[in-house]
């Protein structure tokens, strides 16, 4: 039986390193953390950064996040709906950290589809959990993979997922006038079920 990716903490070190490396690209970071959780990544990476927005569904966790980072804006609720409604648009966010339990694409769609001021440089760090489903050949049933299935074939999606991630990020970012300047992606975690990727976007 495979491990539940929700409980796989083996990727924390990589997650943290990836974000620390990406932060070097942004001079004055203003963070948007879409899934705050218990604030572990904040403790390890973002502590000391005064401006940011964090979203979290769980009321208990939200309460903790608001005491953990008093200068940030803390939203309680579903991050996709909140982002689409303009949560955090009072700040010019230039560093987005997406760490959902499953796939990241609906969150990125909501972010790039929202009305907000866009900075010249935008860093995106993502942990994505779609790979397990793609390995089980379930890609045909995932709306974000529509069109991609035809390009790679349902059975091959998992083999190409990091490059698919790059392609999708390029497309979504291009909708608001960005091009991808720097990039990294890799699979990790138990049986390689997680995909981490990061991109630095610049205004084209």
């Amino acid at each position, binding site marked *: 039986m495979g491990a539940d990716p929700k409980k796989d903490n083996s990727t924390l070190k*990589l997650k943290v390193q990836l974000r*620390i490396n990406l932060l070097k690209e942004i001079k004055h970071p203003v963070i948007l953390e879409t899934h705050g959780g218990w604030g572990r990544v904040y403790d390890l990476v973002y502590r000391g950064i005064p401006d940011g927005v964090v979203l979290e569904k769980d009321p208990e966790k939200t309460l903790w996040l608001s005491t953990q980072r008093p200068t940030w804006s803390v939203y309680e609720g579903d991050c996709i*709906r909140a982002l689409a*409604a303009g949560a955090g648009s009072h700040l010019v966010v230039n560093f987005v950290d997406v760490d959902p339990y499953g796939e990241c694409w609906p969150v990125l769609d909501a972010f790039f589809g929202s009305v907000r001021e866009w900075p010249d440089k935008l860093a995106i760090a993502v942990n994505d959990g779609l790979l397990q489903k793609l390995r089980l050949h379930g890609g045909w049933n995932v709306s974000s993979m529509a069109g991609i299935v035809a390009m790679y074939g349902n059975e091959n999606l998992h083999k190409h997922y990091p490059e698919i991630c790059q392609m999708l990020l390029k497309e979504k970012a291009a909708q608001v006038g960005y091009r991808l300047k720097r990039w990294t992606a890799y699979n990790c975690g138990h049986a390689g079920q997680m995909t981490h990727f990061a991109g630095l976007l610049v205004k084209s």
Partner: protein
Amino acid sequence: MPTKKVKPTAWRNRIVGHDRKPASWFLLNPDNWKIHPLLQAEALDDLLSKVGWVGEVVVNKRTSEKWTEAQRNKPTLVDGHLRVQQALRRGKVLRVPLVYVDLEPDEERLVLVTMDPIGTMAQTDDEKLGELLAGMAGGEDPINQMLGDLSREADMTRLQDIEEDGAPGGRDLGDRNLAIKPVIRLDELSTFEKAIQLTGEANRGKAILTICSFYIEQAGGK
């Protein structure tokens, strides 16, 4: 005619002594501006555990008349706050090696502000670092294992330049206006966010105060 040798101007040596003191002896500098994330603290603790002390913390004796009476002759930490804090976590009596300097207030401020930033101005020679890590990693020793992990993981998490430019992927995006966006609008949140934006305040707390003040004003101050 014999040429006269010009003596290069020597830098002043401001070091006035060395010592070892218990962690609880140190007076932290109230002007220390550095924030140390947990990851840095853990990494430092790990290094100190594996290797031990290889550098002294810096303490300013503050003997100059320019210091106020309250500050004068109060040896105060200038560099090494995290090392002292980590030592304190292990026990107040743990002895920390230190170097004494004797600086005036302006000099201490300058050192506080510039010491780490000057260090971070160094550029990385990736090739040399790679060689260094390659030469160190791979053995059975735990430190080598750690460096091996560091080397591999740093490679994974390092960003690479994208060579092609402009092209937003290999697919035709079509008419953006016709694209269906998975957006579900929350009316209350939208209104609230719009109100926040209309205040023109970058600080969210101030924006909320502005909105509240407006409503109080509308309600005749009640």
